[in-house]
């Protein structure tokens, strides 16, 4: 039994935490949160210099060729620090889409640039409110051009390229779907910044009007390719969420241990103690589910879809609770703009919605349970 990260992986994590504690304070986060920049370019450059974007990219494509476990420990620290960089869009989504569905040519074209920090990518699925389904996907990819709209694309204003889920044939349902890659600086692409609840993760609306696009993966496989990308991204995002939840627990605890009310530390009141105990319980369960997701991801286990869904649901719930109750523990001061509580509260919701809501993942989880019970 060795259900833990290796010493090397732990060392990497410690280094990442140390680096981010120094270089990515909440002051760094606020510069993006309160400003118009989509990300912190200095931080992005530093991260690139350390090779983080290439952690799971094979060496032949310019990556470090380490693996997903290494990427997971970095993800946890990025989540803890609320790092304002397009890491998840570029690494968990865009790069994984290329690795899953890309041709050798495409891998050679995109992956080295990602690993070098020279390419920001994103992934575009939603076209409106409600569920993303084969039916809701109307953007049309035909004859090497893309036409249609995509909304709420994370890091969309800063991305160089987008992977887009689109309809490439008249086949019904998911059989008509295919992924494609679009150069966002090309003709026929209009982008508009959209206001988001967490402005440290900016979003964009894309309007494609006959934009040049290249196929990524086969026709009819767009939906299943997307599912695979989302499974992988869900595991890594779960680590970001666990990192965020853990940060909230630490903040709440630290505050409760120095704030007095009625002559006592507020940490001595059961209402606070039990709230923090619940935060701890949720976060530990989420961490354990995330570990299992990491194992499944790193070994390519066929349990990945179930493990990813469980990690996603558990981590979303943990971060949601921890960020809410961290604010509550702080009382009035916790609801001011100057305190950092709301940065976590807003990030928790952004991460909960990006990649699709809990409902969708829960339904998927149960579908996987049904399949595994039937097997």
């Amino acid at each position: 039994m060795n259900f833990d990260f290796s010493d090397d992986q732990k060392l990497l994590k410690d280094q990442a935490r140390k680096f981010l504690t120094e270089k990515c304070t909440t002051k760094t986060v606020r510069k993006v949160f309160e400003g118009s920049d989509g990300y912190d370019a200095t931080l992005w450059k530093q991260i690139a210099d350390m090779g983080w974007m290439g952690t799971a990219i094979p060496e032949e494509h310019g990556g470090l060729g380490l693996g997903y476990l290494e990427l997971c420990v970095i993800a946890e620290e990025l989540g803890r620090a609320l790092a304002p960089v397009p890491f998840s869009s570029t690494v968990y989504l865009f790069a994984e889409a290329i690795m899953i569905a890309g041709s050798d040519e495409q891998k050679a074209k995109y992956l080295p640039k990602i690993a070098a920090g020279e390419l920001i990518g994103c992934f575009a699925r939603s076209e409106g409110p409600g569920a993303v389904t084969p039916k809701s996907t109307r953007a049309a990819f035909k004859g090497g051009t893309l036409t249609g709209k995509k909304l709420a694309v994370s890091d969309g204003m800063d991305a160089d390229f987008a992977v887009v889920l689109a309809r490439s044939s008249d086949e019904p349902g998911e059989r008509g779907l295919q992924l494609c890659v679009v150069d966002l600086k090309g003709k026929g692409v209009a982008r508009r910044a959209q206001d988001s609840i967490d402005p440290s993760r900016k979003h964009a609306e894309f309007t494609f009007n006959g934009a040049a696009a290249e196929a990524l993966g086969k026709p009819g496989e767009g939906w299943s390719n997307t599912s695979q990308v989302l499974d992988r991204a869900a595991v890594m995002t779960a680590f970001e969420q666990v990192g965020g939840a853990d940060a909230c627990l630490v903040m709440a605890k630290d505050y409760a241990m120095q704030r007095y009310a009625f002559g006592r530390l507020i940490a001595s009141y059961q209402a606070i103690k039990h709230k923090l105990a619940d935060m701890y319980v949720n976060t530990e369960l989420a961490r354990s589910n995330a570990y299992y997701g990491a194992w499944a991801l790193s070994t390519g286990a066929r349990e990945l879809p179930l493990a990813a869904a469980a990690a996603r649901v558990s981590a979303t719930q943990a971060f949601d609770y921890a960020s809410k109750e961290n604010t509550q523990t702080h009382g009035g001061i916790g609801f001011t703009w100057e305190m950092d509580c709301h940065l976590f509260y807003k990030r928790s919701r952004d991460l909960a919605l990006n990649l699709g809501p809990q409902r969708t993942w829960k339904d998927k989880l149960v579908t996987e349970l049904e399949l595994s019970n039937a097997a």
Partner: protein
Amino acid sequence: MDFEDTPEEAAFRAEANKWLSANAKLRGAKKSADDMAEMENGAAAEMAASKAWQKKKAEAGYARITWPKGQGGIGGTPMQSIIFGQEEAKYDVASGGPFAIGLGMCIPTLMAYGDEAAKKRYVWPAVCGDEIWCQLFSEPAGGSDVAGLRTKAERDGDEWVINGQKIWTTGAQFSDYGILLTRTDPNVPKHKGLTMFYIDMHDPAVEVRPIKQASGGSGFNEVFFTNLRVKDSQRLGEVGQGWQVALTTLMHERLAVGGGQGGGLDEKALMGLARTLELEDGPAIKNASVRERLADWYVRSAGLKYTTYRTMTALSQGKQPGPEASIAKIVVAAKLQDLAAFAMELEGEVGALKGDDAPAAGAFQMGWMSAPGLRIAGGTDEILRNIIAERVLGLPQDVRVDKDVPFNKMPTGR
């Protein structure tokens, strides 16, 4: 059991309506373009409209119905206040919001503890809207624990010199006066060393700074006092009796805060959203999980609504309603936070947007961002549960380690 007025109530309602229709227009379904333009004249125009409407009501005795004639009232019943409020809500009139704290809390305190000269000077200008009051109690060191305050008042002949800071002061930026709770003796247990004053908010020794909230708004302020000098005649109650005076004020606060919050973002709004969205398995409104939550939240809203009816019935029967009103905010705040988050999940990835980019013009995002504040302002969830446990159910207070310790000997972590 019915929902009808008593004959006396019906008569009062008719009378109120007569006066209202003579002095205001019924609220239309939609604002006209003119009205919209008017509103955009901004805060100053709004405030002027509020003051004008308040004066009209005060002169007619509708501003504070339960107060005596000539002081903005008619010596009426609490039920008559409610009836007037119900009818007034049908008319297109300016908000009475700026006067709520002054008339709901500060002036009653002044009426209870001020001298005749003060009452004569301040009551009418407040009730007729000419002067606005705020309440200066909370401090950074003591949110829930109001009596833990540190703002110092030191005697200097016939005056007091005040230094310190208040926080969460609603309306300080447009207030003319305020009632201010200070510490005058740090050598006695905390509840015993307090003294209450009223002060001029325009004094240059008073500085008001708005607080930016996590939701982006700025409803509250910090207020700083630097060698503010007030006359001893501005003292309310005896030296060292400030806590008793404050309790009078706070008793009025509980009645003033209560329910009705949540910005109208309820299960009806969620139902409206659910009718427009498609989920994986079809229309959101047909989804069993959505329907279950709609029902859960509806029974809480409806339960609160009919609890209010029971309270109004008690008032109508001349009874004093109990602290049951505390339940409203606990229920509403938690529901708002959950419901808004759930709505955003229904919206999907697009739910991470806000403002006009989000569905329903970002109403659910706004509700979700303001909910944490609602769970805290006017008593945290935890304090309100304590209040219900102690005042309604009669359970003991939490163990108090601060009751008999001199204030300056109390642990504070600073």
